């Protein structure tokens, strides 16, 4: 039988085996989908919902200043009043402690007093919501000041976010491409568990008894994983685009290069794990550690520039950082192939793959336990 025909048979057999394995369905398809949907709902604002904050207002006594401020506060659309009317200080404290409201605004007690107090739960002191409330309140007070003083503000801040690619890049796009890169990487990191299983069952030795070339078997396995990765890209993109309004600006050459180099590199890493793991448990342990470390340190869910300074170099070493950047270049930034940064990343990714593969091949060749 010719080489290509044999490769076809091996590919056919392996693709059947892959799709008959329930674990593959769960970990490579359902799990990334669930994870992506959860993150998008929690951090992506669940589509286009606006920011709202539950508040309570305390008015220690009725006075002209407090009444005026109360009237104005009612007109701020993002504040949702827990109770229509101002409540007592005790009631407000209870709500804050129980987190029934996110903030309590205490109006001035006398007509002459000018301070407005904002109370939040200590746990939420640094949360985004608190920051937003205090920002809004700050602006609100300033405007009130201006109007009391009868001044028209000269400068106004108009905020607009831009990215280096296109105007409509959103967190949803960022997260979706991150999840796609993560699931392809995991496909490689975990996919080679098959080698450990085949070794345990004696299948590797069984194949060595036949004239089949193990290299050919490996190539067929790689092709199968490319198919799986392609399916992952399609499904996750579809959910991102249709479910959460993600936008793609695809640059095919960039995407193809990043995809192939990345998929090969992570398969090589999985191959390396399989070379020194004697049991399934050992392999899964190593693959899990690698996957979890990279998941959070490589900017899958959040940009890495928010990390503390000492952590930044770590993310600059990890292969997933470069893979996810490459995939974003190809899928949402619509550039890459022309930039030095892209090729630098691909180079580092390729180096990871090459080193992992060579070390693994060496361990496989030298290790005698391997065959059992």
């Amino acid at each position: 039988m010719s080489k290509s025909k044999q490769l076809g048979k091996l590919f056919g057999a392996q693709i059947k085996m892959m799709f008959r394995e329930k674990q593959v369905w769960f970990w490579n398809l359902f799990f990334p989908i669930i994870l992506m949907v959860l993150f998008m709902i929690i951090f992506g604002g669940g589509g286009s919902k606006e920011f709202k904050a539950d508040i309570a207002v305390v008015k220690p006594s009725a006075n002209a200043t407090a009444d005026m401020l109360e009237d104005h506060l009612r007109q701020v659309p993002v504040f949702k009043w827990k109770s229509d009317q101002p409540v007592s200080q005790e009631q407000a404290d209870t709500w804050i402690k129980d987190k029934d409201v996110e903030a309590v605004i205490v109006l001035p007690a006398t007509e002459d007093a000018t301070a407005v107090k904002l109370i939040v739960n200590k746990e939420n002191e640094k949360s985004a919501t608190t920051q937003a409330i205090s920002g809004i309140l700050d602006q609100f007070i300033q405007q009130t000041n201006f109007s009391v003083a009868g001044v028209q503000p000269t400068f106004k801040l108009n905020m607009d976010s831009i990215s280096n690619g296109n105007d409509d890049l959103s967190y949803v796009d960022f997260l979706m491409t991150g999840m796609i890169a993560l699931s392809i990487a995991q496909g490689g990191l975990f996919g080679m568990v098959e080698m450990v299983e085949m070794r345990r069952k004696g299948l590797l030795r069984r194949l060595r008894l036949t004239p089949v070339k193990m290299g050919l078997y490996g190539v067929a396995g790689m092709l199968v994983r490319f198919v799986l990765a392609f399916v992952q890209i399609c499904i996750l993109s579809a959910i991102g685009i249709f479910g959460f309004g993600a936008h793609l600006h695809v640059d095919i050459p960039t995407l193809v290069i990043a995809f192939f180099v990345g998929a090969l590199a992570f398969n090589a890493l999985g191959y390396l794990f399989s070379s020194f793991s004697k049991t399934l448990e050992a392999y899964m342990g190593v693959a899990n550690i690698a996957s979890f470390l990279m998941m959070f340190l490589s900017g899958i869910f959040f940009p890495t520039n928010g990390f503390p300074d000492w952590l930044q170099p770590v993310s600059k070493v990890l292969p997933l950082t470069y893979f996810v950047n490459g995939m974003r270049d190809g899928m949402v930034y619509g550039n890459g192939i022309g930039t030095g940064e892209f090729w630098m990343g691909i180079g580092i990714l390729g180096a990871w793959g090459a080193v992992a593969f060579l070390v693994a091949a060496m361990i496989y060749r030298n290790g005698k336990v391997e065959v059992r």
Partner: protein
Amino acid sequence: MRKTVEALSLFGYNVIVKSGLENKGEEFMSLLEARNLKKSFGTVKAVDGISFSVEAGEVFTIIGPNGAGKTTTLEMVEGLQPPDGGSISIAGLTWDKDAFAIKLMIGVQPQSGAMFDLLTVKENLELFASFYPKPKSTEEVLEMINLSDHRSKRVKSLSGGQRQRLAIGLAMISDPSIIFLDEPTTGLDPQARRNIWDIVLKLKELGKTTILTTHYMEEAEKLSDRVCIVDQGRIVTLDTPAALIERLTKEREVRLTFQDGEEAAKETERMAMGESTVVRTLREGSSLKLWSVQPEETLYGLFGFTKEQGYRVEQVSIREMSLEDVFIAFTGKEWRD
């Protein structure tokens, strides 16, 4: 040639007789020749100088207890493990030079019976068939291993016996001239075991050469043309099952139990040891076992002695011999399955 004879002679004349080397001056090649194979794992000598040759068309059985070195020997011959010493030639080819050609000639059912669990019976056979240039037809193999009705079943859901038959099917999918079966019936129920025997006998009819390991004496006796008994990495003896039993039949076990207790047994043993027909004796309390090359002669003498002494013999028996006894006689060990 001289070297071979020397090496073979280490393991008893029967080896030489069968290989037929000493009778012919010219080079004579068996289908498979293993010479003075050695393999150690750390300090353990798993195989310690095993030599045998297998002729085309025969069923050659290697039998021995667990850890005797059967599987290691087989794996060296199959090319899975390089021997520390010795040589292997299969149809004049060696693993160093002609690995690919040998792989086309042999079919192996390893002990683990490894196959693709997520594929069906038919898919497994077809996949393995794709590895070879001229495979047998899948249908024919399915028929032979009697799995035609289960062709669409996944390996996962097969019974132990069905699984083992498929493993043998995978070994013969390439239509090999030599088939290795490593403990094909271990752990199977009697019916499933008999099914496997049928397949082995069918293979023999087809003119295939089969090399089989087992720890069941009954199996070796039923299936093999020649039996090679190994223990502790060495060949204990090698011959046809009939000849092995025949050789031992000359030495039959005679058992006597005395009513008068130990003293009578002891005295009789002393007397028996003086008889020229008695090879050895073993006494346990008041019962005495002895091995005689002429049991009738021995018994005649013994009864003369006991009558004279006035000992009352409670029980007398002469045992039939089986391969199991051959093993015990040659290794001095109890047989354990």
